[in-house]
């Protein structure tokens, strides 16, 4: 017979399906007879799902401009390492920004979310900021494509084919998203869709650059992780 105090430290892992089969059976047995612990596990799942749904937040474009202004000469660096970093930074931004933003208490009269830009922004300003943000991605993608094409000879043929197929598919999605945005320039879903597609392309290119780095070292484990999307 297990008690609630024995079970409760395992409820988080249970909600995340991260328990060993034996321990999972013990917890399941307890939950079948304990409403309180069962409700706790269910609430943990709801909290996790709600947190996951928060999704990425894109900082306003002026943040990029400020950073670029602080990095004179960054554009002149052509090393693959720096380009890989640029791509990774794009990916990591959402998480870092989410955490950074959560480091200060949110006022109950808090301003609109980041995606709504500044409250006084005009339509023209929003459109300009959107264009700058898209340009940022386009520049990062162009640089990464250059590196990926230069060094992709190091990749095994089947890996290169898989990556190229992913890129072709995402290019099609980007083209559709751009077309949708032209038709509805103020549509937030259309904007989100385009940024999501651009982020995915950066991710694929980043994986390509990382693979190119892993192959010459014979680092098959890293390469396999990258291909599994776990790196």
């Amino acid at each position, binding site marked *: 017979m297990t008690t*609630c*105090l024995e079970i*409760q*430290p395992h*409820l*988080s892992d249970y909600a995340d399906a*991260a328990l060993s089969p034996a321990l999972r059976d013990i917890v399941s047995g307890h939950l079948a007879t304990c*409403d*309180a*612990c069962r*409700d*706790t596990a269910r*609430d*943990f799942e*709801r*909290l*996790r799902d*709600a*947190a*996951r*749904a*928060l999704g990425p937040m894109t*900082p*306003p474009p002026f*943040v990029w401009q*400020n*950073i670029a202004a*602080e*990095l004179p000469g*960054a554009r002149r660096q052509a090393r693959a*390492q*720096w380009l*890989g*970093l640029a791509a*990774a*930074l794009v*990916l*990591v*931004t959402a*998480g*870092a*920004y*989410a*955490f*950074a*933003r*959560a*480091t*200060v*208490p*949110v*006022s*109950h009269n*808090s*301003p609109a979310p*980041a995606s709504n830009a500044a409250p006084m922004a005009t339509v023209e300003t929003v459109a300009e900021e959107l264009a700058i943000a898209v340009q940022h991605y386009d520049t990062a993608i162009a640089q990464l494509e250059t590196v990926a094409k230069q060094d992709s000879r190091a990749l095994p043929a089947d890996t290169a084919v898989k990556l190229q197929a992913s890129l072709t598919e995402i290019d099609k999605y980007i083209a559709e998203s751009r077309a949708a945005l032209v038709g509805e320039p103020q549509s937030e879903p259309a904007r989100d869709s385009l940024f999501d597609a651009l982020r995915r392309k950066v991710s694929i290119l*980043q994986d390509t650059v*990382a693979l190119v*780095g892993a192959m010459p070292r014979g680092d098959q484990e890293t390469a396999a992780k990258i291909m599994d999307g776990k*790196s």
Partner: protein
Amino acid sequence: MVGRSHGEDLLQDIFLTAHRKLDQYRGESSLGTWLFRLATNVCLDHLRSRANRNAQMTSEFDETISVEELSAGSSGPVVGVVDRLDLDRALADLPPGCRAVFVLHDVEGFEHREIAGMLTIAEGTSKSQLHKARMRLRRALATPGSARESRL
């Protein structure tokens, strides 16, 4: 400096720090992991300095978990549909350590093993901090009229 602009300044610090320390990246972990660790440390450093000013924060990874934080409490689900803004506010009220773990695990989807590497803590600490964060959020987001809420 409040709210969103504060986060934007921290983000800028993270990018500039990453640029400055790039030559220290040795490839032991993935670039993404290295950056998340760096970003989290910049944020925690910021919180530490703020805490020093306020002189009222305990260790960010305090292992002590009260009975109430461990206890499921009375029966009945307490969390209904979670409103995004409510979750944002409740997150902001969490202690920095368990907030960092919650964001990395539940928002970003990292595993405890990865979080332990990023925050330089034990995997068990990451698990206990997540449990603590979830219990606190559960209490903070209690639906009015739920069994627990009416008890409190």
